[in-house]
């Protein structure tokens, strides 16, 4: 059952590492740790009219964490804070609730459904989203 978690699509997503890299002059950034394993995600963004215009992340983590960061790298550009929050909420519901969300803002979020039975891994999946939300808040604070 845990092998289903590591289907090819999620490994590909992790390896693609969409959005990996650092920004020269970010508007906002955040660094977050997973206290269980020392995993660490850095998110840097610039914004335009509230929308994320560029994004770079530096992710040291497990496959799930890296796939999640890569998913963000793929979809976050053009989103505002509400859009990211919606994606994060859909992800959280899909991980922790008996019923999946009615609609998925980003289709590849479905790749994380097999993590549902493993609460200890939810933190790995959610860490990049929490970090991005913190970076958004940081850019608000800097604005």
């Amino acid at each position, binding site marked *: *059952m*845990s*092998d289903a*978690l*590591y289907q090819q699509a999620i*490994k590909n997503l992790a390896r693609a590492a969409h959005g990996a890299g650092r920004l020269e002059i970010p508007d906002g950034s955040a660094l977050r740790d997973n206290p*269980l*394993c*020392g*995993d*660490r995600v850095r998110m840097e963004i610039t914004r335009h009219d509230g929308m994320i215009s560029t994004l770079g992340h530096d992710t*040291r*983590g*497990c*496959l*799930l964490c890296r796939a999640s960061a890569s998913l963000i790298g793929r979809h976050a550009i053009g989103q505002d804070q509400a859009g990211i929050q919606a994606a994060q909420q859909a992800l959280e519901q899909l991980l922790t609730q008996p019923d999946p969300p009615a609609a998925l803002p980003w289709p590849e979020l479905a790749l994380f459904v097999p993590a549902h039975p*493993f609460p200890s*891994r939810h933190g*790995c999946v959610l860490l990049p989203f929490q970090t991005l939300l913190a970076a958004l808040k940081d850019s608000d604070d800097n604005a």
Partner: protein
Amino acid sequence: MKTGFDPRMVRQDFPFFSSREQPYHYLDNAATAQMHAAAFEAMHRHDLENRANVMRGNHRLAERATTAYESARQVVARFINAAHASEIVFTGGTTAAINLVAASLGSQWKPGDEVVVSQAEHHSNLLPWQALQARGIVLRVLPLQVDGCLETEALATLIGPRCKLVAVTHASNVTGAVTDVAAVVAAARQVGAWVLLDGAQRVQHGPLDVQALGCDFYAFSGHKCFGPSGIGVLWGQAAWLDRMPPFLRGGGMVGRVEPDQADWAPAPRRFEAGTPPITQAVGLAAVLEALMQWDWDAVHAHEAALQQLLLQGLQALPGLRLLGPVDGTARLPLASFSLAELHPHDLCQVLDGQGVAVRGGHHCAQPLMAHFGVEASVRASLACYNDRSDVDALLAGLVHAREVLA
């Protein structure tokens, strides 16, 4: 004492195994070991027949509960060969025991006094001492050899005249390396410093002798030696305990109390404020009694043979890096490692799918992980009830995991 040892026989004393429908290879014993039947039974019986608060009543249940609790102290004293049962303080666990010593002794030390720990310590034997820095106590950290063993040669220079205590692990929960206690004690004695050993990992591997070790304090947890959660032990030399101020304060540890002052009961009661973990003490004692019946030479031979299999099997895997000594240094039967670029969490997840329980993470020893230059590792830890099939399942699982994660 029974002679010889057969892990299949001993598994019958662990209800965990008979309750499984499918075989499950539990190799996370260094985190928490499975509970011995003696603890199940003793705790059930105690709560059924002798349940009452201790030391404060004289009806028959209170008498029986108090007797059971004090007898538990005696059993623990025998297990570690303490000179007297009054040297046994029951706590919530190793962590609570070490916090007790740090707070109690620390309150008597002066700014500039020093404590020595090693870089291999579990956070529970590091952070309580770190906290004393706020009071001007100096924390000195013993460096490690490349393989994570304590650099005992540095002891002499690190332990200065202001050193009050050396607090080190008896055996590492990451590398399994058993500390050269004699060297530590000798160096500490040079300056009259005391020695605390963190025995959390050691107790699972049989009775010990604190007097022969020559240390002053010893701490361990019930859940790591086949006993219940919620209980631990602090052993301290009677002469020291009697001089130490209390840590937690409350009912049961006092002499006379007035609104603005109080005096203290003698040790060990002085250190057991409030209702102690009574049932858990009884359960722990029942397990230790059972363990004292075993032929530990045979158990150790069994564990050593398995350890050999484990280390050889791991080292044969391409890309595997073992964290810890491989030169014949005394070590517990556990192994921490990384495998190529695979993340410990992913490895553990796939292994669990294969029915193998191991642990991935920093094992609450971040400074040691930093020494090795890694954030996390996988740890497989063996106990007496494991056998060859467990090691084989782990090794096969790693091969499988590498495929799944590739």
